[in-house]
């Protein structure tokens, strides 16, 4: 028998609440965390709104702030969610846990570049006549302007490194960045590390903010974001006929994953079990998912096979559901291909309708919502669902939460560039 991996702690800071409880309560009430952007003046951007984390203060979660002084939002969000998860799991430093067998696996985004500073440096070294950069000017200015700690915090290993240092987690330490699939992939691979005996416990999840001028620029240029500036709270409308792109969000979700016998021995509270993990690539195009959902289908099947559960066992699907035309169409197609006629009987909802798309952090936060659904027996809705799309004809739990006993949830995450990840989380049974 392979080792079983359970969830013994959860933490989240999101646009809909800075604790797991607050997040889930707002989700079952169908609230939206979307509003006009406050992080910077976005009034001239094609998209002027996002789901931002409001009133976040790291000091509320972490006492010793010295390590986080120069850290960017990714690291700070991650620290807050990790503190919640580790407290929840009774797994902070000073407990009897072997710290060398306790690792970190994040799907955390890159640190944020200082937009005013960088655009100023580039602008000052640009020659508009021949449209070229004077690199000597750029280098001189950059060297005299850059603040080493601030530059350093852009590196992608700093967040998992800070968490390991702060919370004394001396086991394996990984960060992956596979766009919108990252934190789901992190959780899947962290689960496998425990199954294969490389660690007893893993702090795993994701953290990301791309609500800054470079991030909005990049996604706007790809025409991936909704531009429904007239009504931001209605902009994220997964599976609705009038969807026009995703709404970017920010935040972090963290879980403590633990080998079952280890959790039992120390009397940990068990929230659920990670039973299935599937991971594939579309290998199709950079900007589009495969038209027939090839990668998504194989990924969902892979997760179900890994769990050993019959297809019928899946009681709820927490969809990737980005509110882009292509994703919602392809994901619906994939669910129908895998589940056949029964697809129409499985409730499918998208957390992104309410919290937006947390990019690398999305999967972890959505897995937490999936676990809360199992524990509380209420499926959060897909809000802003108004006009059915004939191509998206499943039960999307429109607008109102629904009571239902769910034992096994499938959570999908599909990344830009073609990485697909599906996780199955189950009610814990001995």
């Amino acid at each position, binding site marked *: 028998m392979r080792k079983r991996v359970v969830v013994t702690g959860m933490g989240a800071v999101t646009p809909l609440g800075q604790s797991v409880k607050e997040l889930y309560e707002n989700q079952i009430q169908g609230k939206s965390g979307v509003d006009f952007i406050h992080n910077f003046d976005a009034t001239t951007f094609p998209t002027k709104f996002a789901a931002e984390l409001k009133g976040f203060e790291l000091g509320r979660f972490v006492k010793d702030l010295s390590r986080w002084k120069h850290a960017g939002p990714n690291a700070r969000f991650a620290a807050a969610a990790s503190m919640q998860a580790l407290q929840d799991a009774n797994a902070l430093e000073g407990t009897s846990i072997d710290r060398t067998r306790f690792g970190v696996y994040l799907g955390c985004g890159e640190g944020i570049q200082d937009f005013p500073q960088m655009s100023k440096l580039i602008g000052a070294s640009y020659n508009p006549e021949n449209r070229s950069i004077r690199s000597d000017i750029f280098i001189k200015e950059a060297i005299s302007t850059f603040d080493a700690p601030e530059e350093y915090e852009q590196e992608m*290993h700093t967040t998992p*490194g800070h968490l390991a240092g702060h919370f004394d987690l001396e086991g394996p330490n*990984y960060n992956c960045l596979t766009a919108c699939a990252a934190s789901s992939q992190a959780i899947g691979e962290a689960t496998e590390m425990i199954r*294969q005996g*490389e660690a007893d416990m893993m702090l795993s999840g994701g953290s990301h903010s791309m609500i800054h001028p470079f991030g909005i620029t990049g996604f706007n240029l790809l025409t991936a974001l909704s531009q429904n500036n007239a009504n931001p709270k209605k902009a994220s409308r997964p599976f609705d006929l009038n969807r026009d792109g995703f709404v970017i969000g920010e935040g972090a979700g963290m879980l403590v994953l633990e080998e079952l016998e280890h959790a039992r021995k120390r009397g940990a509270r068990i929230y659920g079990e990670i039973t299935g993990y599937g991971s*594939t690539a579309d290998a199709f195009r*950079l900007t589009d998912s495969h038209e027939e959902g090839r990668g998504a289908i194989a990924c969902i099947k892979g997760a179900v096979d890994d769990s050993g559960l019959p297809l019928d066992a899946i009681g709820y699907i927490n969809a990737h559901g980005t509110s882009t035309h292509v994703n919602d169409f392809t994901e619906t197609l994939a669910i129908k291909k895998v589940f056949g006629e029964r697809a129409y009987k499985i409730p499918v909802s998208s957390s992104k309708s309410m919290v937006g798309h947390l990019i690398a952090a999305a999967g972890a936060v959505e897995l937490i919502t999936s676990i809360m659904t199992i524990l509380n027996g209420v499926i959060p809705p897909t809000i802003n669902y108004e006009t059915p799309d004939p191509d998206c004809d499943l039960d999307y739990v429109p607008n109102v939460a629904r009571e239902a006993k769910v034992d096994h949830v499938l959570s999908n995450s599909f990344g830009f560039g*073609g990485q697909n990840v599906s996780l199955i989380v189950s009610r814990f049974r001995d």
Partner: protein
Amino acid sequence: MSANRRVVITGVGVITSIGMDAAAFWDGLARGACGVRTIKAFDPSPLATRFAGEIDGFDPKKYLSKEGRKQIRVMARSIQLAVASAQLAIDDGKVDKSKLDPTRFGVEYGAGLIPSELTELGEASYLATGKATHPVDVRAWGEKIRETIQPLWMLKYLPNMLACHVSILHDAQGPNNSITESDAASLLALGEATRILRRNQADFFLVGGADSKINPLSQARQQVFGRLSRNNEDPVHALKPFDKRRDGLVIGEGGCTLVTEELEHAQKRGASIVAEVAGFGSSFDRGLTGKGLARAIRFALGQAGITPNDIDHVNAQGLGSPDLDAFEARAINEVFGTAVPVWTIKPNIGHLGAGSGVTELAGSLLAMKHGTLPGTLNYETPDPACPIQVQTKARAIGKPYFVKVGFTEMGQCAAVVCKKW
């Protein structure tokens, strides 16, 4: 259960400043060649460190099909190096792609931060900032982005694009991951790919890492980090790992992709097996005491079922950094004492960042294959703070295993044990 599945390496694709394929790379190592010299890609004169292990005459078109060449415009240099090394690995491994099951074909890369090319943001920045003395006008930027920046701009710089492009070019539909853990990234990727093959989620993998920091923005950042050697008078001798006179890192660029596969899969297709991935370990060394790195090495040895006596040589990270070399040496000493020779190829090619681990590991693979371990360059004056036996002269390979070590300055550590086939 799949616990007995074994993982072997059957192809090596490598591009560095001393050689643009595995044969040329080995030839360079065997000759003691050094690719470090004054930077040519841009005018480095304002920098305190003006040299690096830069690749001369790299042309990504050579490694891509007609269809693939269309994508070069959306590939930053790190991505180009990855896709080129992937093609070389496929060639070296004599892989007939038509005979592979695409759904059992995985891809995994270690990737670093990829900075935007400055010219791509030039016009928008200029319009937003006007003259340097003006405050930045983000509204002016927002108005102009669609006219001034190309639509796929962001895709060119996402770290998952190394693995994405490789998966598209080779129809690899299996697991696909991108490890962004700085200098430990590509060894962690190799460890994970091995884990995936062992657990029977794939049969065949392209795994590697690639990184280029030889551009104005990355070099300016490296300078403010303050870890580079400033020996502009003598670039070839600037990087002196474990030597008492060491004074800092030297940046290099390049990439490496390995073909790794499950043993029976390799045997069935008649592959020429280079080595077995026998063990892997990873850890976080809190406070850089050396205990954590030693733990990762011991874990890898344990997984391989061997003792330190079975190791021919340690292929070290060998950054040339005063403090980090001492850290690494403490860990190696803790596990091996001074009995096992330590080799590093950093002085030959510079530090490849996220690509360093697997590229350097390829050096040991080729040494095993050819039966000779070349010496470490630039090591003359032993340092009591680095109590290890640095291999300086070429010698015959004596034992079937080597261990490759990698870590970040924050404390993320990885160790891989390979066995000559």
